[in-house]
Every structure is written in C-alpha cells, then in structure tokens.
C-alpha cells in the first residue's frame, strides 16, 4: 500500500486531526509533519490535514478516557519536540495505546513507546532549562521582553510558567526561530504566530541592571575552580546569544 505522509499546521489540534484521519481513512500513514514537507519523496503521497477542533477533541478524550492522562501528556510533549520522524512514532504509540490501555507506558522496550518518551523527556528538559536561562529586558514601555531560540517548540509551557509566576506584570516572549510570540497580561497569555518583532527601545534603567548582573556573575565564580567545560555542559553555547551575562558586548 502506498506510504502516506500527513502535513499539519504544527498545532496539537492539527496532530489530533491527522490521527483521526489516519484512523478513518485506513491509509498507510508513516509520518505526521508539523509543517509542509521540506523535501518530497517521489514514492510517497503527501496530504495536508487541516486542524479541526471537533476531531481533535474526540482523539483527546479517547486518549484521556481509554488510556490515561499521562499518555496524553507524553503525546503532547513529544509533538513539541519537532524531532524528525516523531509524528510517525506518535501515531504508532496511539494505535498501541488503544490496544494496551494504561499499561502502554510500561512497555518501555517497544521502539515507539521509547521514542515518544525520549522526545517528551527532551522537551521537558529544555522547558525546564529555559525557565532558568530566559532573560527579560525592561522596555521603555514598561514591558518585560524576552527572546528565545530553542531546539524544541517550548514557548507554550514557558509562557504558562511565567504567566502564573509574574502576577499582573505584562511580558512578551518571542521565539525568534519560529516567529511565535506569547503576550501576557494579568496572569493570562495569548500566542501569536507569524510575528515579525521590531527592535525594542529599552528602559534607561535596563543597562544599569544588566551591567550589575554581569559584574555579579564574574564576582561569584571561584578563580581556583575555573571550569569552562563544566559550564558549557550545563549551559550550552547555543543559548548564549540571548543571555545577558554571556552575549557578546556588541549585541548588548
């Protein structure tokens, strides 16, 4: 049977609509992509699936009721990983989950279960890392503004954390790679896609605190223990460009 690859808009509703379609069309679906295919394979048939709230709800409630909420969380987080091939693993995982029920997450020696768990673990790890490494700058308009550039699509869990934490503060988190922006006010946030963010005018006080932080950062290290390898292991260089204490002076 011809191999089919579904293309979605990258949202969770898109994924679930694709899963729904795979179940009812009976097609041999081998992968679900979070966007248009970069390179098309001549032997594979490509098909666009539109996000659909109703179909998505049906898949969600089936997962939640017939399998477990944990299984739903594994799927949701694995999808955010955007790792190559993850859509196919997720589909196989869901098919297996409907057969095995809540035992699915014990079946760790199964390749699809292992792939979904590993991807969701990576997303959790990067989310947690960004909760620490994200840096806000105060703009002239009194908004706290942060830029991120992450391996996985973690803006939603990050925005949730800060919306809950920062009370009535207004803030914006901008994913420069995916052009997504989360705008938050009074503990609530909304996500916008396809955003081209203009350069922000900073508050006059901002340079002073950034400088103070950099001085503190240098003062707190013990010279006799200097260990750049260890530092990079925890804080890889790819994150430094948005990091107040590490970004090159020219970009400050």
């Amino acid at each position, binding site marked *: 049977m011809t191999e089919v690859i579904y293309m979605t808009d990258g949202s969770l509703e898109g994924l679930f609509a694709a899963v729904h379609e795979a179940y009812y069309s009976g097609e041999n679906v081998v992968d679900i992509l979070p966007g248009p295919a970069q390179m098309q394979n001549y032997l594979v048939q490509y098909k666009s699936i539109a996000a659909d709230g109703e179909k998505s709800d049906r898949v969600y409630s089936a997962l939640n009721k017939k399998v477990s909420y944990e299984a739903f969380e594994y799927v949701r987080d694995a999808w955010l990983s955007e790792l190559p091939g993850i859509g196919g693993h997720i589909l196989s995982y869901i098919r297996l989950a409907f057969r095995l029920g809540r035992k699915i997450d014990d079946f760790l020696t199964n390749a699809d279960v292992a792939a979904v768990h590993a991807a969701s673990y990576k997303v959790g790890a990067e989310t947690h890392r960004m909760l620490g490494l994200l840096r*806000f700058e*105060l703009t002239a308009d009194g908004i706290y503004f942060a830029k991120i550039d992450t391996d996985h699509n973690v803006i939603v869990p990050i925005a949730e954390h*800060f919306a809950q*934490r*920062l*009370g009535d503060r207004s803030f914006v988190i901008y994913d420069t790679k995916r052009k997504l922006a989360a705008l938050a006010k009074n503990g609530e946030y909304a996500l916008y896609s396809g955003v081209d963010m203009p350069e922000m005018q900073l508050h006059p006080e901002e340079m002073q*605190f950034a400088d103070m*932080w950099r001085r503190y950062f240098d003062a707190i290290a013990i010279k006799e223990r200097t*260990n750049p390898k260890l530092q990079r292991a*925890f804080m890889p260089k790819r994150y430094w460009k948005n990091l107040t204490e590490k970004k090159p002076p020219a970009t400050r």
Partner: protein
Amino acid sequence: MELYEKLEILGAAAKYDASCSSSGSNRQGKVGSAALPGICHSWANDGRCISLLKVLLSNKCIYNCAYCKNSTDSDVPRAEFAPEELVKITESFYARNYIEGLFLSSAVTRNPDYTMERMLEVMRLLRQRGFGGYIHCKAIPGASDDLVRQCGFLADRMSVNIELPSQSSLQLLAPKKSKLDILNPMGVIRNAITEARDKKSIHAPEPFVPAGQSTQMIVGASPETDRQILLLSGALYRNYELKRVYYSAYVPVTNHPALPGITKPPLLREHRLYQADWLMRFYNFSSDEILDERLPMLDEYLDPKCAWALRHMEYFPVEVNRAPLNTLLRVPGIGNISARRILSARRMAKLTFSDLKALGVVLKRAAYFITCSGKYEPQLKMSPAYVYRALSAQEKLPVFDAGIQTSMFDEARELSAMRLLGRLQA
C-alpha cells in the same frame, strides 16, 4: 560607594558557600513564586550553578576564623548593604529572571543578634512588598532562638554551617564558634519545622522553612577522614532531619599556620563525597557501610558505589528480571531512573541485555554485577582486579585536571586497586 561595587564585594565574599538550591518550596506571592524542583538560572565560570542571588549583607566581621577570607585580620575591601538596597537589587534581578530568589548570609557585625535582626529586616521588607521568590537564610550562630524562629517564617530554607567536621578542628581554626553555637540553632529550626508540620492537619499554618534546612562543611582544611565526614553527615540527616549536607573543597585564602599548605582545592575528594552522599540520600546506603575502618578514605579512581560493590561481591550477581528495587539500586550502572524503568518494563516482557541498554542502564558498569534470566552477558571477562581496572578506566577524571602522567596514573591506580581488594595493608 556605588551600589554595583557593594554587590561585587559582597557577592565575592559569599562565593564559598556551596548551597544554591532553590528546591523544596511552592510558595506563591504577588510577584514571584517558588518552583518545587528548583530552577538554575546560570552557571558561573567555575561551572557551579547560580540559582539564588548569593550575597552577604555585610562582610565587616568581628571574628577571626583562620579559613575565612572575611576574618578581621584579612585585607579585603569591606562593604555593607542597607536593607532597602538589597531589596531593590533582588526585585530587579528577579523581574529579569536572572535569579530564583535570594541567598542571604552575613558576616557577624557588632554581635550575632544585631546581624540576624538586619537580615530579618531584609526578608520582612521583601515579603511585605509581595515578593514570592525563594529565600535561603543563614542562621547566625549565637543569635537568639526567637530571632532564628522569626526568620524561619519568612524564609523557604535556612542553614547553619557546621564549617569543620570535628570539634577539635573547630577549636583550632574557628575559636569563636563552638559546636553548641552551631547545633543549637539547627535544633531550634528542626523543632519549629516539626511543630509546623504537626499542626498542619488542623488548619493551614504559616509555613516554617518549607524547604527544610541544610548545612555545609569544609573538606581538606583539617585532618578528618572521609569515613568520619560521612558518619557525621549520616548523623545530621538522622538527628536534625537535614535536607542537604554540602561539602566545600578547601580553597586556601589565608596563610594561617594551622592550615594545610595546599595550592589547589581538593575537588576530586569533594566530588567523591557528594557521590557518597547521594548513596545515602537516594540509594538507601547507611553512612557506616560506604567505608569501613580498615579503608577510611573514598577511592580516587572509582566511584563509591563501584568500590562498595567490589568489596561486596557476595551481593552479586543480581537477577534483573526478579530483584526488588532496593537490590537493583545497589548495582553500579543502574540509577534511580533506570531501576524504576526496569520495574515497569519487566511487567511487560522478560528483559534482555539489549533491552537494558535501551532503558538507560550503563551496561559497561552493570554487566559485571547482573544476570538476565540467569545468564551473564556473553563473553564477559571477570576477576576482581580486571573489573577494577575496567571500571576505573571509565571514570572521567580529567574534569578536575588531575595533571597526573599516564604511567604514574597507572601505577597509582594499581596500588589503589590492591588496597581496595585487600591485597595491601592500607
């Protein structure tokens, strides 16, 4: 003096405190909250994490402890924050997500009560202004019980540093601090935590040090063995219900005649002690089984779990398809996560060596100590000396710049192996 200068001086003065954890609390304020697992915000150039703004309120100390850079005799610039200044920095840093909260310590200025009161003032101001971030507060030895208790209602964690692992070393190097001065506030905090916990069932009480208390000791400034240190830690965990004991490799900061003349901090020793500490806290090892009197120091070339396993081959091999959690946890190469994965996965199917690898077991280590369905891994070479060499070869020593040449390293390692395997008198 400019504010940033104060911050530089008082940040540098606080850097020898090892603790920076922001875990264990889920406070929610008007602005800010604590996250239960803790969040690291940066890593300094020494590779240590920065989670909290770690500063002294003042470094104008009236004591003259030999190991400390802030002693009366030492020639360092002195500074002191006004409480409002520190509040402003904390809030501004927190808003930019540089930090998870404040780690507030201080040199003893004027007297212990005065110092503790000033620290209390900082915390009171922050909490009044709705600050919900994490606060770790040092209890000042010698401060009144009542002040220590008041601090506990504002802080998420408190700690009293035990400083040196024995009373005699304390007497020699920190003559103004006595064991009692240190243990007393620790007891006060423990009792208040228990009290707050027991009240919980009736109505929601004010949280008292919800993230528990910790302590720190300096390693390598005094002659105690690793076994003595671990026994002390074990007793602290048991008797004072501490959340953490931190070990801090001694960094030479003064030239006191009673201090060892070392040039490099004993980082490898510190690392081994942390590994042993992990065994106590997460692997159900008791403090007196990790080392025995015959061999009171942790092995340089092997992590403490491997070293323990090689001296207790009677526990092995462990059958992974049947062994209970606690037995699995004793196997080198099986950690807390992989042990729990084994328990899940073996409910679904009998596990093979390649399954174990997929579950995250480090087979290079574990293979010597386990069987799958009654069989060792095929082609496994085994003898205690061989296993020692194989395991120690996997250790990542260069992180600490051991600086030993290969041939010397091999010789030293061989001696260490023979000692551990009981073929040499220690």
